């Protein structure tokens, strides 16, 4: 006669294994989170102290102390802004193509290229643009920096856009086509609007991804301790490179400003990520 309270050791062993595995999972999560949390806390502790009105308005000081990273803030906005202007149209349109028309050899090829480009080390993008633009334009400039960031952004935007557009149910496309709406109009006026929150999310995440890039900028926009408002001429300061410079300074006060800049960068990227999450929660394709 079987009973619900099995007396065999089998059940007890199963329960034990279950507990063990659950515990292992939690431990793994902890191992993954601890370094991240430690990094964040450390940056906050070291960086928050450096924040002052002068930090946001002043220029980097080579010696002595104080100063700020106002030029880096402006420079990062210029660089990321230019990169966005170049990469968002291309990335989004390529993603639309892949999702709606890309079930062919060309689509497969583009997808392969995009995936490969996603894996390109960012410094390679920098060196490539150094050879292509910096040498030919007679020196470091913001455009070169923005283009190197664009190389990193486009594949990310392309693939994320493709992904969310594919989430739009086929029945919506059929509905429009059956009404006698041409296919291109169905794509632009029905499918893309249904996926727009997801597209925006992907774009914001890609911006967050490149806003902190240092390596490609070292070869292209370089850095400067002064403001530069010219997009095509002269080295362009940026937060990541200012941090890089400050970190190598022998002066404690300069390194302090670097910590402040690091904290600022983390806050900016965190804000972008949070915005992306909020946008995406607003609407799910297909509803």
């Amino acid at each position, binding site marked *: 006669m079987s009973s619900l309270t099995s007396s065999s050791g089998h059940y007890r062993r199963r329960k034990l294994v279950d507990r063990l595995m659950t515990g292992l999972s939690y431990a793994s999560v902890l191992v993954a989170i601890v370094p991240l949390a430690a990094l964040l806390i450390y940056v906050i502790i070291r960086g928050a102290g450096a924040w002052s009105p002068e930090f946001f308005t002043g220029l980097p000081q080579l010696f002595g102390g104080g100063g700020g990273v106002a030029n880096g803030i402006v420079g990062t906005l210029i660089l990321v802004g230019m990169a966005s202007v170049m990469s968002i149209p291309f990335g989004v*349109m390529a993603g*639309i*193509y892949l999702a*709606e*028309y890309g*079930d062919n050899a060309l689509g497969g090829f583009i997808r392969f290229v995009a995936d490969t480009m996603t894996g390109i080390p960012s410094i390679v993008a920098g060196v490539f643009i150094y050879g292509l633009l910096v040498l030919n334009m007679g020196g470091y400039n913001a455009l070169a920096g923005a283009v190197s960031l664009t190389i990193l952004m486009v594949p990310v935007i392309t693939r994320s856009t493709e992904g969310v557009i594919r989430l739009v*149910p086929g*029945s*919506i*496309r*059929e*509905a*429009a*086509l*059956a*009404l*006698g*709406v*041409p*296919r*291109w*109009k169905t*794509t*632009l*006026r*029905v499918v893309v*609007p*249904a996926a727009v929150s997801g597209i925006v999310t992907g774009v914001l995440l890609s911006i967050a991804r490149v806003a902190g890039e240092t390596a490609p900028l070292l070869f292209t926009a370089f850095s400067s301790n002064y403001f530069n408002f010219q997009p095509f001429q002269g080295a362009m300061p940026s937060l990541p490179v200012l941090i890089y410079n400050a970190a190598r300074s022998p002066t404690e006060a300069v390194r302090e400003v670097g910590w402040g800049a690091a904290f600022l960068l983390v806050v900016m990227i965190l804000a972008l990520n949070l915005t992306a999450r909020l946008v995406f929660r607003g*609407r799910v*394709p*297909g*509803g």
Partner: protein
Amino acid sequence: MEIVSFGKDETTVDRREAMKERKDKVGARQKSPGQPDVGRPEEPVMEVEDLNMYYGSFKALADVDMKVRRNRVTALIGPSGCGKSTFIRSLNRMHEVVRGARAEGRVTLDGEDIYASDVDPVQVRRRVGMVFQKPNPFPTMTVYDNVVAGLKLGRRRKKSELDEIVERTLKQAALWSEVKDKLKESGMSLSGGQQQRLCIARTLAMEPEVILMDEPASALDPVSTQKIEDAIDELKQQYTVVIVTHNMQQASRASDYTGFFFIEDTGKPGQLWEFGETEKMFSNPERQETEDYVTGRFG
């Protein structure tokens, strides 16, 4: 705009001409909105001759001949997988949206071959509308915008004209009284049955000659089903309706003609086994399989 050239089902050649022609037709019809087309009831509006359909190398449908008569409801019945949905899609070239699907044969609309190489499927679908099994309102649009979506995505129209169309088509779809106070709400906020009637109104707004319905009530409860049937009965006054259904009562109640699709054996193509007036099909069919099916002995 690069994307345009990749749309494979869009023949831009002759587009302008087709548009012009269509415009004339629309113009002529607008004098009496919602009125039947030229041509008398009972005359064939669509004729299918020797239609064979394939999915890749698989033959899904063989040798279908059928006449769809104006201002009549034609029901298509038969067991699952016998090609009813495949067939109904061939009537407005929606099968082309399915990858690998193709049709061979002749399908005419008012005597014009809709598979001719210079015919734009977009124009065909404006004249032969379709309602799907699962309600599929546009998720980003309001009730109002859903109804006029097809029109708004076409040429510009006056607001007053759109208002009038929204009210008329929602009434025809037996939905007006339920949604007249929430026209500005999302189409997705309606119940399943209401969404389906919204989809019917959306199709009516294009003023098609023929309306295809692919099991429009199969995802709905009995009350909603009844409302859809009421709507179909109403539509028959002005439109030609072809409806796929698994519901025998629905076919016998709502239709004038019935086509029974049957598949002899798995792997074989589906066929139009018998076609005739609904009354005869349900009381005294020619073939044994039809009788077995309509009496519920199988399927």
